[in-house]
């Protein structure tokens, strides 16, 4: 009787789908050089990049300070960020310099530096090109286990019926949104691996890394053969598929990265995506901030996008007295919109939580924030007017020294929001001459916040 190696329900022992399982826990400690700016072996501490986004804008008069410079006053909607003001810059006066379907045009320009393509039908827009975080990931993350991490707190994704441009904060290109994962346990499983008990057996694991690679070789060849028979649009879809396979292969190679002393695999969250009706926004923001911080600390990735809520998919925050979604309220609440304002304050408090979480991660002689460049924004200036001016934007972190912090900077000439994108790209060390197209094309960053 042959000995059978495959046991039911123990399929993933040693299968090591997650990166940490592949390299073994805990990861190597990073040894630092004398002034904490690099590892002991001279490799520099990598800079991380992120985007934090929320939908439907702010109340302009209660968000933007009036005094540019380092002594900006804490406004009602920035109040939650007071404790971390030294880590951020607030940016005012920047505009989306093209009209179009509002919300759609803002999000397209802030993601890709250009307008959308409209395929007709019900608000059926898509981006025209990949979003700029893809370029950043290419620059920063060629060697990390994952090129980027895309997470979110609240999304009901499917039900709005509008185009792909509205679904995601990041796109590989037209027809390829990088959806924000809102299930904390799914994020954990993808990053840190499916944890199963490893039984005491000397049986070979199924599947083994070696055989997984053999199978992927076969799949690659088949995909390439199929690709040759396709039109360009489908070739692009196969290219995405091949790219995803390359990611799996990269992780199978199991080269441990130096990681960071603060890296530790978090406990696996039990939570799936938040309940659509009664989402626990605070808990889910915290869980995602934790997972993101650890993914960066462990150098599993150096790029993340964090979609707090959209404008077509956003919750009814009953705890704040809302009787409609944030977006609805921006269009129905009268007066100076006190509930909208309360939601804006709440949203900023959630951003503050992420900033604090990053602050708690020691990297080098400082914190993860010192080595991060995060861009925070919404796709409209104000919800009720859909203003394309005064888009609320912030930068967070010092980017390893490339970014100043603690400032309120205001553009007085309605400069394009894309200057901020360009600033982030330069801050993480990209040698990029320009960003954006047409009215959004810029060649200079926001000098006031760069060192």
């Amino acid at each position, binding site marked *: 009787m042959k000995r059978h190696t*495959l*046991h039911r329900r123990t399929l993933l022992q040693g299968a090591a789908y997650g990166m940490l399982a592949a390299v073994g826990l805990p990861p190597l400690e990073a040894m630092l050089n004398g002034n904490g700016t690099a590892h002991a072996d001279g490799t520099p501490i990598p800079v991380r990049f992120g985007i934090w986004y929320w939908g439907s804008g702010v109340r302009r008069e209660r968000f933007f300070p009036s005094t540019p410079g380092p002594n900006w006053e804490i406004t009602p909607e920035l109040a939650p960020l007071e404790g971390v003001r030294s880590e951020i810059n607030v940016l005012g006066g920047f505009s989306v310099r093209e009209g179009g379907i*509002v919300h759609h045009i803002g999000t397209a320009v802030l993601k890709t530096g250009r307008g959308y393509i409209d*395929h007709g039908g019900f608000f059926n827009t898509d981006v025209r090109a990949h979003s700029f975080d*893809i370029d950043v990931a290419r620059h920063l993350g060629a060697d990390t286990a994952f090129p980027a991490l895309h997470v979110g707190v609240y999304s009901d994704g499917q039900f709005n019926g509008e185009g792909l441009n509205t679904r995601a904060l990041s796109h590989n290109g037209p027809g390829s949104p990088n959806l924000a994962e809102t299930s904390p346990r799914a994020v954990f499983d993808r990053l840190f691996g499916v944890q199963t008990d490893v039984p005491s057996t000397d049986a070979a694991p199924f599947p083994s890394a070696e055989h997984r690679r053999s199978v992927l070789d076969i799949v690659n060849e088949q995909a390439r053969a199929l690709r040759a*028979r396709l039109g360009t649009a489908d070739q692009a879809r*196969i290219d995405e*598929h091949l790219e995803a396979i390359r990611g799996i292969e990269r992780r199978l190679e199991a080269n441990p990265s130096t990681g960071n002393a603060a890296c530790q695999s978090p406990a696996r969250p039990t939570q799936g995506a938040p309940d659509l009706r009664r989402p626990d926004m605070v808990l889910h923001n915290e869980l995602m901030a934790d997972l993101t911080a650890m993914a960066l600390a462990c150098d599993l990735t150096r790029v993340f996008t964090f979609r707090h809520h959209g404008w077509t998919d956003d919750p009814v925050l009953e705890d704040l007295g809302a009787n409609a979604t944030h977006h609805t309220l921006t269009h129905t609440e009268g007066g100076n919109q006190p509930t909208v304002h309360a939601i804006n304050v709440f949203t900023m408090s959630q951003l503050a939580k992420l900033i604090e979480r990053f602050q708690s991660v020691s990297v080098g002689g400082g914190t993860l924030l010192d080595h991060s460049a995060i861009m925070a924004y919404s796709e409209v200036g104000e919800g009720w007017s859909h203003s394309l001016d005064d888009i609320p934007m912030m930068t967070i972190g010092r980017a390893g020294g490339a970014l100043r912090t603690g400032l309120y900077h205001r553009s007085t000439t309605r400069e394009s929001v894309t200057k901020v994108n360009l600033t982030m790209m330069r801050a993480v060390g990209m040698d990029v001459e320009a960003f954006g197209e047409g009215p959004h094309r810029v060649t200079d960053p926001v000098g006031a916040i760069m060192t």
Partner: protein
Amino acid sequence: MQGRSLFGRRRSSRRPHWRQSRFVGPALLIGATLAGCTGVIADSGTGSGGPDASGGGEGGGGEELSGDFRGSSAGLRLLSVSEYRATLRDLLGVEVPGTDTFQADTPVQGFTAIGATRVAYSAPKVERFEQVAYELAGEVFAEGGRRQDLVGCEPSSSTDPCIREFLASFARRAFRRPATAAELDTYAGLVASTADPDAWTGLAYAVAAILQSPSFLYRVELGEPDAAGGEHLRLTGFELATRLAYLVTGSTPDDELLDAAESGALDDEQGLSEQLERLLASPAAQTALMTFLEEQLDLHHVHKIVKVPEAFPDFTPALAEAMAHEMYEVVRDVAVREPDDLLSLFSRRDTYVNGPLAALYGVPGPESANDWIPVTLPEDGPRAGLLGFAGFLASHSGAAETSVTKRGFFVVSKLLCREIPAPPGDVITVLPEPPAGGHVTMRERVEQHMSDPSCKGCHLAMDPPGLALEHFDALGVYRETDGGLAIDATGEIDGEAFDGARELGELLAAHPDVSACFARRFHEYALGTALGKKTSVTDLVGAFEDSGRRLPDLVRAVVLHDSFRLVSAPR
């Protein structure tokens, strides 16, 4: 990783740049619009109404469709999550694990089937496909699993001929076409090289490899030149079988269908019709065809209804479930169970209630939430049809208030297939506050839509059907008044007047645009593409009307139409 671009990009300028003249302004719940909105694209040259002028198709930004071509382009289609699960159930007899195992599908223009021809599999999804392939293969080939049933023999070694026979038959089912000799060589070689400690392990790897193949994960619809000399490509027999199976059963073609494809039986209408009838009679057909209506009629919105507790303390998850159950059961009855005129969905008074729902409707009913009984709503009552379902009304409202725009937009856009452009970007979109201390009806609050010149063009088309439903609050409960004020539920569509939900339902049940809209949208769903607004489908609409407007007959008309097996050159 030198020489590799992280995301090898095709040129993004491959689509023509269309003027974005039509859609300017915010995507709003309550908004304002261009002047001159006549219910169809303004410069289409056609008036409102008329089956061909309507459509859920492309606007000025339309792209790959060439002229009037009625079909998608040759290429790949993704498997939806439910298609993937059903396929693996049929191939291996095992269930794909987990609830958040996969990222959700990405519908485009209201249908997952259109998204399937345009959207890429995401990286997390590709990763999960690999993992699930091993999870399922491991389960099937484990000791005590159903491996012998599946393989059909007990291989004596890793080169036992029965292995290659199994691989050929399994790959044929998985790829939905015969595997090539080269493919079989590859998989047989894989079995031999991974057969440690035995052939079962090797077979598990081979099955997992097959389930990761692009020939499995994508439905290939490349077609072949038309032997009759037509300018477009014709799907091969296997490709047609695949399209038929997924459309009608939501899963992969079975052996009998593959055999029919192989023998050429699907090349003529009779052979195709025989297989179609066989599939339509299968239990899976009812579920699969419901997907069309679920997406077209926004039925799935019932799963995300949010109500403010102070305003609606009776709104519990149990009530939400009851609302969903009622809607799905009635639609299922009319569409697939005892197929009837689809348009009767808007006027019928036969429905089902349990305790809570009966109370909500104010009709006699069971005590318990667990008991469901059929009822007929009163003939002179306010409610009839889909527009009277609590599930529809509650899901097309706000959390505390009704939404004239959501309800009106549904009628105009989803039932009449009329396009409503986006509002302009520079209007103030907050409705005026009611006078201090005074309550006004929702009609009065949205009056501004209909008097402001930049709003009224489109809101005159869109708001009246929504206002007709104002006798139902945000939960779908009937109310005589709106905060003590009389409700005016009158309106008109194309000059035909109605007063209230029941009359509106009766109007829609007899409106030619509604049947044309169903026909056109199912056609798009089946083809996996939006149709150009100049693309005529009058033949299909006529066939649908003549057959009594039953969904299975619409399926027959679409499947047997030549367009079902044509594709244009790859884009």
